[in-house]
């Protein structure tokens, strides 16, 4: 599992300024969690996913000081663009198979209802 920031760094070096870096991260990793540094809810999500044998890619949004990246992320999450809007977003935000799955609540709900495992399998996040 490559840390998403390595990807970002690599993209930066390539001079790839077209954006879509976030999308690349999400597309290339089966499960991605965007969370604030030291967020305890993110910790809960990670534990739940670990329990299923999944190693999610965790992106620290506090380190995303690039306005473009933050804006792109906000757009993907479905929020409104604009300065400081990323701060208003609900974190942690989980992407499974390239799509926004939701937050801790959605993960928990799917875990209880049994829908989580099939989804993970679909996204090829599970080794079994």
């Amino acid at each position, binding site marked *: 599992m490559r840390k998403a920031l390595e990807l970002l760094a690599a993209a930066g070096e390539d001079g790839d300024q077209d954006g879509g870096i976030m999308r690349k991260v999400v597309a290339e990793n089966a499960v991605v969690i965007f969370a604030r540094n*030291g*967020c*305890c*809810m993110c*910790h*809960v*999500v990670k*534990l*739940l996913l670990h*329990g299923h044998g999944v190693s999610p890619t965790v992106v620290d949004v506090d380190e995303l000081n690039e306005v473009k990246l933050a804006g792109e992320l906000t757009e993907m999450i479905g929020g409104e663009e604009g300065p400081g809007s990323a701060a208003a977003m609900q974190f942690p935000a989980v992407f499974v198979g390239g799509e926004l799955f939701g937050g*801790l*609540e959605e993960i*928990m*709900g799917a*875990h*209880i*209802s*049994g829908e989580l495992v099939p989804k993970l399998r679909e996204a090829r996040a599970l080794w079994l």
Partner: protein
Amino acid sequence: MFSFGKQELIVNHASSNRMNSASTQFVPSRRMGICEPIHQMAMWGDFKGNDLLPVSPPMILDFEAKLDNQSEDTSHQTAGPSNIYTEQASKLNDKALRRLAQNREAARKSRMRKKAYVQQLENSKLKLIQLEQELDRARKQGRYVDSSADTTQLSHSGSMNPGILKFEMEYSSWLDEQNRRISDLRKAVHSNIGEREMQILVDAAIKHYSHLFTMKAAAAKADVFYIMSGMWKTPAERFFFWIGGFRPSETIKILLPHLEPLLEQQHLDISNLGQSCHQAEDALSQGMDKLQHIIGGTLADGQLGEGNYFSQINAAKDKLEDLVRFVCQADYLRQETLQQIYRILTTYQTAQALLAMGEYSQRLRTLSSCWSSRSHERA
């Protein structure tokens, strides 16, 4: 008997013109704690004392002692020396005038004392009403009622938070409603009612739980510590507490034996559900531990001992917001577990499950009240 101190005697003497003859015995010795209402009633003959709360005597005595010390002083004043005849005549006049003035003075002080006493009574009456309400609420829920404890609390937790007071009232009616539903379910499960009627009962019962979660969410925003401490629950319920409520995996363990007959698949599904709950609970618990760790670290940041910790408090306050989210997530887990049970089981089995859950909670509450009365017996 009573040992009348100097002060008690003065009280009798100065205010005798306003009191009836029973007053000589009304002032209790300071050795007594709360005096009997009878004594207080005799003090003001025109008061009906049925709804009086015994007022602490030292307070009245202090007040009266102060006033009466003054009146004692004025009564000892005498006129200066002068011509005998005019002196005597003027002395008589003076004496009469003085006596009138003293009477006026005594009357005025008496009125002031009466006013203060009435004010005290009014306050005590209000307090009594509040206490009675609290007692009533507490007894209804079988909560621990300690009458010797500090009774200045307005609510069970001492909270004056309107959001919490509202929650406590709502919870009280929720509980009454819940007990009704449990007996309805009990009757239904042991009778031959139709599928549709059963469905209605079950749906309503589950909705009732949802209502509780909504109430709790609002209360958590008002005061998350209140919810986390389970202040509205009975002590035995609190013993089994987990992040603001019941532990779903425990509930499933309790339910399982009462759901026979189950199909093989159902049995498997319920067991798996129990396991999923357990995993989710562990994850949430560990998240909570981390939050505790972080808040503790924030609070301990900087020099402990400097005396200046404004920034640490503020930083910790911000992080406490996450606590609300945890409580909500725990409730969401409870809600989803109930929904999943509903999906796995038949209507009748769900009714059995709800009945088992409900009665288990009733037993916990009963345990609490039995335990508290046992403690009282021992004390």
